[in-house]
C-alpha cells in the first residue's frame, strides 16, 4: 500500500512537471500586454514614479526614453493592446501592490469602448500577464461572459495550440533580444504613414459612455484618490477622431472634473504640441517614433513642472531606465538612417560607434563616380579592384576579403554574421553578407551596404548604391 502510494505520488509529480513545462513553453508571451507586465513585476518596489495605463495609444505615444533623458522621470507603461478600462483598473490594482507612483496617467482612448466583451486575443493580452491573484481572476471575470469564465481561467485551453508558432523566446526563461534589456513598455512606430492635417471640427453636446466603461473609469479615478496618488487623464494625438468621439470625451472630461482630475485631449492642443500628420504618424491611430518624441517632450515638461517627481538621472539604481533610453534613441537613429534617401548623406551615419557596417562591391562599379567615391572614401577604402567584402565596427576597419581570407564569420552573444566571397564557375565572385541566417543583397552591380546596430540588435538598414541606376541609393 505504501509502495503504491509513493508510486502514485511520484507519477503525479512527474506528470505535473511535464504539463507545467508544456504550459510554460506554450504560454503566450505577447509584448503588448503580457511580457510588459512580466517586466513590470521585475522592477524594484517603488521605483516607478509615473505609471501609465491604457491601450496601444498609450504605449506608442508616451516615450519612456524621452521622459528619462529630458526629465529624469522613471516611468512605466502598464498597458495592453485595445485594453478596455476594466482591465486597466485591475492592472492598476495589481501595480499598486508594489509601486507607489507620484503620478498615474490614464490614456483615455478606450473611453470610447462600445463593446462589453472583446475578442479572445485582446482578452488574453489584457489578463494573462497578471500573476495568479484575485486581480487576475476578477479581470477575467470582467472580460468575458460568465459561461466562458472557466475556459479563460484555465488559461492553457486558450493557447495550447500555439505549437506551430513556437520560437526561441518560448524556450528561454526571458526574452533575450536587446530591446527587452531595460524595456519599460514603450513600442516605437518605425515607419511613417503620411496623412493630411485632420480637421476635427467642433461640435457641441455629449454622449454617455458605455455603462461598464464608466463604472471602471470612475473606479480607476477613485482608486487613485483613495491611495492619495495624483492621476491625470490624457488623450494622446491620433488621426481619426469623429464628432461622436469628441462627445464621449466631453462626457469623460465632465466625469474627471467631478473628481477634480486633470483631463487633457492633446488633439485639441496644437499650441502645446504641434503634430505634423505628414511625418509624425505611424498610422491613423498612432504616433510614430518622431511623433512620440514631440508629444512626450512637451508633456514631460508639463508634468515635471506640475508634480513633485524626482529626477533620477545618474542614480545607479535607475540604470535600466538609461538602458531603455539608450535603446530608444538608437532606434530613432536607425529610423533616420532608413529614411535617408540621399546617398551623399550616408557616410555621416556609417561611422557611428554602435554601427557594424558590412559592405560589398559587386559586379561593375565606377570608382571615380562621386557617390561611390564619397561612400568608400568615407570608410577609408581605396582599393576595390575586382570587388570584395569589408567589415567596419564603429567606423574602424575590422576585416576585408583582400587580406587573404575569402570568408569570415563573426558572432556576438545573440547574433551571427557571415561574410562569404564565393567563386562562380565563370571565374567571377559572388559576395554574400549573411546576418542571422538572412542574406542581404540589394544591387547586382554597385555597392551593397548592411548596417547592424549593436545597441538595438537589428539590421538598421540595408541598401545599395546601384550602378545600373545612375548610382542612386536604393533599398
Amino acid at each position, binding site marked *: 500500500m505504501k509502495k503504491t502510494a509513493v*508510486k502514485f505520488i511520484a507519477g503525479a509529480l512527474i*506528470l505535473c512537471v511535464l504539463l507545467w513545462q508544456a504550459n510554460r513553453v506554450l504560454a503566450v508571451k505577447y509584448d503588448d500586454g503580457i511580457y510588459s507586465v512580466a517586466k513590470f513585476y521585475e522592477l524594484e518596489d517603488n521605483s516607478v514614479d509615473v505609471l501609465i495605463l491604457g491601450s496601444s495609444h498609450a504605449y506608442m505615444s508616451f516615450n519612456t526614453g524621452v521622459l528619462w533623458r529630458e526629465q529624469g522621470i522613471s516611468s512605466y507603461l502598464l498597458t495592453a493592446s485595445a485594453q478596455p478600462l476594466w482591465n486597466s483598473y485591475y492592472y492598476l490594482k495589481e501595480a499598486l501592490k508594489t509601486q507607489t507612483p507620484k503620478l498615474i496617467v490614464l490614456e483615455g482612448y478606450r473611453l470610447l469602448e462600445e463593446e462589453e466583451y472583446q475578442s*479572445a486575443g485582446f482578452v488574453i493580452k489584457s489578463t494573462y500577464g497578471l500573476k495568479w491573484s484575485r486581480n487576475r481572476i476578477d479581470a477575467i471575470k470582467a472580460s468575458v461572459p460568465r459561461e466562458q469564465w472557466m475556459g479563460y481561467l484555465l488559461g492553457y485551453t486558450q493557447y495550447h*495550440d500555439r*505549437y506551430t508558432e513556437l520560437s526561441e523566446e518560448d524556450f528561454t526563461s526571458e526574452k533575450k533580444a536587446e530591446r527587452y534589456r531595460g524595456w519599460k513598455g514603450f513600442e516605437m512606430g518605425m515607419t511613417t504613414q503620411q496623412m493630411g492635417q485632420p480637421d476635427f471640427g467642433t461640435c457641441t453636446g455629449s454622449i454617455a459612455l458605455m455603462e461598464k466603461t464608466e463604472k471602471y473609469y470612475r473606479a480607476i479615478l477613485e482608486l487613485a484618490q483613495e491611495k492619495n496618488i495624483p492621476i491625470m487623464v490624457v488623450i494622446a494625438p491620433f488621426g481619426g477622431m469623429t464628432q461622436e468621439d469628441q462627445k464621449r470625451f466631453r462626457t469623460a472630461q465632465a466625469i474627471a472634473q467631478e473628481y477634480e482630475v486633470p483631463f487633457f485631449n492633446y488633439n485639441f492642443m496644437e499650441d502645446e504640441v504641434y503634430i505634423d500628420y505628414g511625418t509624425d504618424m505611424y498610422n491613423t491611430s498612432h504616433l510614430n517614433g518622431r511623433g512620440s518624441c514631440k508629444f512626450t517632450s512637451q508633456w514631460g515638461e508639463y508634468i515635471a513642472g506640475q508634480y513633485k517627481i524626482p529626477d533620477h538621472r545618474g542614480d545607479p539604481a535607475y540604470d535600466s531606465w538609461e538602458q531603455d533610453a539608450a535603446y530608444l534613441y538608437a532606434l530613432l537613429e536607425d529610423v533616420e538612417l532608413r529614411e535617408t534617401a540621399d546617398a551623399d548623406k550616408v557616410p555621416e551615419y556609417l561611422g557611428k560607434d554602435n554601427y557594424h557596417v558590412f559592405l560589398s562591391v559587386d559586379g561593375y562599379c565606377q570608382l571615380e563616380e562621386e557617390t561611390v567615391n564619397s561612400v568608400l572614401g568615407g570608410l577609408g577604402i581605396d582599393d576595390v579592384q575586382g570587388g570584395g567584402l569589408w567589415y567596419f565596427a564603429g567606423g574602424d576597419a575590422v576585416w576585408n576579403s583582400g587580406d587573404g581570407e575569402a570568408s569570415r564569420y563573426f558572432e556576438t552573444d545573440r547574433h551571427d554574421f557571415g561574410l562569404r566571397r564565393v567563386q562562380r564557375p565563370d571565374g567571377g565572385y559572388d559576395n554574400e553578407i549573411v546576418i542571422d541566417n538572412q542574406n542581404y543583397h540589394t544591387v547586382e552591380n554597385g555597392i551593397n551596404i548592411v548596417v547592424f546596430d549593436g545597441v538595438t540588435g537589428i539590421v538598421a538598414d540595408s541598401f545599395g548604391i546601384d550602378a545600373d541606376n545612375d548610382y542612386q541609393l536604393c533599398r
Partner: protein
Amino acid sequence: MEFNSIDFMFFFPIVVALYFVIPKAARQVWLLAASYYFYMSWNAKYAALIAASTLLTYLSGVIIDRCKNGGRKGRALTVLFSCLGVNLGILLLFKYGNFFISSLDKGLRLLHIGGIDQRFSFLLPVGISFYTFQALGYTIDVYRGEIKAERNLIRYALFVSFFPQLVAGPIERSKNLLSQMQNIRQIKLWNARRISSGAILMIWGFFMKMVIADRAAILVNTVFDNYHMYGSAELILAAVLFAVQIYCDFGSYSLIAIGAAKIMGFALMENFNTPYFACSIRDFWSRWHISLSTWFRDYLYIPLGGNRKGRVRKAVNIMIVFLTSGLWHGANWSYVVWGGIHGAYQVIGDLLTLYREKCIRRLRVDTECFSWKFLQAAVTFILVVFAWIFFRASSLRDAFGYIRRIWIRPTPWKFFNGDLYTLGLERPEMNILVVAICILCLVDLIRYRRKMTLDAFLMTQNLWFRWGVSFGLVLMIFVFGKYGAGYDPQQFIYFQF
C-alpha cells in the same frame, strides 16, 4: 456534459472521490444522482423521459417475473409486448417522428396528393437509442428467464442511467452490469492496478477523440460539406479519414466509458476490437460496435429465425437486421442505405462463398499467409469506407453525388502537389495526424496480434515504459488535442443516435 469538456474534468474526479469515501450503503444512490446530473446537463427536461422509461421497464420486469412464476405466460408476453411497444413508441416519436412525416410528405408530393407541413418541434434526447435498447434488453432477458427481475428500483435506475455508458454505450446487458451493481458493496475500490488500467483506457480514449478524431474531422467536414468543389484525391482522402474519424470518435467514447467504469469498479463489455483489421464484413461486425451487433443478434436476428430456416430466410433476416441497424443509427434514408449496403455485402458474400472457394482452389492461392489476410483486410476496408460515404453524407443525393465525383473528376496528381494541405489541415497538422494514426495502428496491432488491450499490454511492461507511454499520451492530448479557444467542439458522433 461531454467527456472532452471542462465540466467533465471536474465532474468525474469529484464523483469518483466521493464514491470512494462515502459509506458503502450510499454508493448506489450517489452514482444514480451523479448519472442524472450528468444526463440533465444536456437538457434537464429529458430526464423525465429516461425516468419514465426506467419506471416502465422496471415495473414490466417485476410483473413479467410474477406472471411467469404464477404460470401466466400469456400475460407475461402481453406485458412484454406492451413494454416494447411503449418504449419503442417513445423512441419512434422522438427520434423518427419527423423523419416519417417528412418521408410521407415527400411521397405524397411526388404523387401530387398534397403534403404535410406539420413537424414535431422537440429535440432528439441524447442517447435515447442506447438506454432504450439497454432497458428493453433487460425486459426481454427477464421474460426469457435469463435473469431475475430487479426489485430494487434505485439499483435498476442506476443500471439504465449509469453515466459512463449512458449516452453512447456500450449497450450493456443486464446479466453483466446489473449483477455487478447488485454487488456494489463488495467492490474493493482502492485497487491500484484496476485504477491505473482504467486511467490508461481513458487516456487512450481521449487521445483517439481529441488528437485523431477531431483533427480528422476538420478535413472531413471541409470536403464532405463542399464535395462539389473537389476531385477524386480529396474525396477519397476524406472518405478514408472519415473511417478513421468515426472509429476514433465512437471507439474513444466506449474506451472512456469502460475506463471510467473500471476506475469505479465496474467492468463494461468491450465495444470495439480492431475493426479495420477485419478479414470480411461479417468479421467487421463482430469487431465494430460489438454491444449493438450482439444486441441485434440476440434480440432480433435469432428470434427471426437466424440461419435456422434456410438460406433465403437467412438472407432476409440479415437484411432486416442491417436495415434496422441503419435506421437505429439515424433518422435518414442514407443511414438505411448504409445498413442495407452492409446487409447486401454479407448476403452477396454468402452467395459467393462456394464460387470463391472454388477459385482459391483452382488458382492455388495460399490462404494461410500474410498476403492473403492483408488482401482480405484491404478489400474489407475498401468496402467499409465505401459504405461510410452514405453514413457521413447529409443525404442520399449527396452520397451519390460524392461517389459520382470520385469517378468523373480524377485528380491523382493532388496526392503529390501539396493541394491536400489546403483542406483545413496544414502541413504541421497533417503531420501530427499521420503520426497519431501510426500510433493508433501500433496499438491496434498489439490488440490484434497479442490479444491485449493497451492497458493490459502496458501492465505487463516495466514501470518506466508504462509511465513513458501514459505521460507521452497525456502530453500529446494537452498539446495537440483539439479543444479550447478557436475550436468548434465536435460532439461525439454517436450522441445523435
